[in-house]
């Protein structure tokens, strides 16, 4: 039974709130709030993906593309047409939702690895378009000059300001998604994962539910993409390639597929490993990264979120002798 309690979320939110104040005083982690901005942005994607993959049981390797769509649509609208950045983000989410619907409706009839390939193919095609449509996207060089975000004259122009922006959005989305999981829709989703047939017999419109969740997760990825673009003030296609799609998959699997909190933990871990911690290994980085992943998968097949359950079982086993 999944019950996500309110207290840990509140504590987590408080920690997130005070973190920049603490980190700013410790030289070694002074730049962590900067890393955390990307963690927050990635969390937005993995929360949606976790709902789609861990709960609805539908794999997607195409979310890097939705992330990219969010980034490019709002970048193009703001730089070329001078549209307000927030409107650009809204437009990007709308465009992404439409694309996700068009792709999701036929794709989600596919099963397992076929669905993985279909979404992967979609992801690669979008990546190629980002590269080839130079007139719009700037091609492989990317496009710069993307304006930052501001609200009623308040500029989100420093690391800390953007940090609070991203994490407020992230926490709101997290709570929203937790509510969904604990609602009738979420229950149907979890049911869907176990038995589509039984779900249908219970009057759940399986196909529609899958598409809705696919679109929802795509829209979150799009939002993340826009936030990324307006923070970096620059986008290029390689931030949205297959490697990123696979990295998202790893984040979710490592944290624990069937638990949305796992997605957040996994995102933290993988982001910090790849963006910050593993650099000390220099050329050995990729070996260490692979080894860590392998060890976690072998010893924690249910991810880090499965750790308490495993520990509990182990303790029970111990006490029984």
């Amino acid at each position, binding site marked *: *039974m999944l019950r996500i309690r309110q207290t840990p979320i509140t504590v987590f939110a408080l920690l997130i709130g005070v973190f920049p104040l603490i980190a700013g005083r410790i030289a070694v982690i002074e730049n962590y709030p900067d890393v955390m901005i990307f963690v927050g942005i990635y969390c937005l994607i993995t929360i949606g993906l976790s709902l789609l993959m861990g709960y609805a049981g539908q794999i997607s390797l195409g979310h890097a593309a939705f992330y990219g769509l969010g980034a490019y649509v709002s970048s193009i609208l703001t730089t070329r047409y001078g549209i307000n950045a927030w409107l650009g983000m809204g437009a990007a989410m709308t465009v992404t939702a439409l694309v996700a619907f068009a792709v999701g409706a036929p794709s989600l009839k596919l099963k397992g690895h076929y669905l993985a390939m279909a979404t992967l193919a979609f992801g690669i095609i979008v990546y190629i378009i980002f590269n080839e449509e130079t007139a719009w996207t700037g091609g492989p060089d990317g496009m710069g000059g993307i304006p930052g975000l501001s609200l009623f004259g308040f500029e989100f122009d420093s690391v800390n300001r953007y940090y609070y922006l991203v994490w407020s959005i992230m926490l709101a989305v997290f709570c929203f998604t937790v509510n969904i999981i604990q*609602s009738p*829709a979420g229950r149907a989703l*979890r049911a869907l994962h176990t*038995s589509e047939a*039984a779900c249908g017999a219970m*009057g759940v*419109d399986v196909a529609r539910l899958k598409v809705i969740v696919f679109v*929802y997760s795509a829209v979150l990825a799009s939002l993340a993409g826009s936030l990324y673009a307006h923070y970096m003030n620059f986008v290029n296609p390689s931030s949205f390639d297959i490697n990123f799609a696979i990295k998202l998959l790893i984040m979710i699997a490592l944290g624990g597929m069937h638990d949305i909190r796992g997605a957040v933990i996994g995102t933290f871990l993988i982001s910090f490993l790849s963006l910050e911690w593993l650099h000390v290994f220099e050329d050995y980085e990729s070996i260490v990264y692979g080894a860590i992943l392998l060890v976690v998968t072998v010893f924690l097949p249910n991810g880090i979120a499965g750790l308490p359950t495993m520990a509990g079982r182990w303790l029970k086993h111990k006490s029984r002798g």
Partner: protein
Amino acid sequence: MQAPVDPILHVKQIMMTFGGLTALMDVGFNVPRGIIKAVIGPNGAGKTTLFNVITGYHRPTEGSVHFEGRQIQHLKTHRIARLGMSRTFQTVELFGNMTVLENVMVGRHHHLPGSLLSCGLKLPHVRRAEQHAREHAMAILEFIRLADKAFEPAHSLGLGEQKVLEIGRALATDPKMVCLDEPAGGLNETESGQLSELICAVKDRGITVLLVEHDMKVVMNISDEILVLNYGQKIAEGTPRQIQHHPKVVEAYLGGDADVA
């Protein structure tokens, strides 16, 4: 309870082929409102296929299915479920990692507001509906006598309880008719006795029951009508007494080496 004249389910000349294989041929029958009707037959006779056609998992090659006077053979499963026909599965298809209560609450799904926005914002009407659904589900658990296990995960139940829970879950959709696919399969004597009682209790609630069953004791005890299939064809239909002495049925069961009644 008075059975109205019009049948709740009318199956008309169903033909179902898979590739070159004919699973059902010209099967047609009626299920009058408020009775228990059993479908029996040797293994491979096409019983489960018939169920799958009726409940929308297969689209028949030919023929039609009418539920409450409405053609349903082209509808999707969930649409048929929402019209008031629910089912259980031969191999138990519970949501194992969810609690017993949650399993039943899934059955309430289409009575609940489901838009992501209202769910995500936890709007008051969602909460109220959820509370109501919970009460309703508990009432069903009382009815199927599983209320004390409401918060245990479904996979921890014994097979007998799982079969019962599947029926409970089907009831949660407020069906007019339930289709039970081998509810007594794999159960012991006591369990199948309890199950028979439960099925009769379901009928007493005014819900029509269509069941596929191998356990002849259960079938003969509780059914009002029986339909016999062999090799995808209807060979007999009638009351339990009529069927027991029907020459074709005796031949089908004794002639093949299938399980004998």
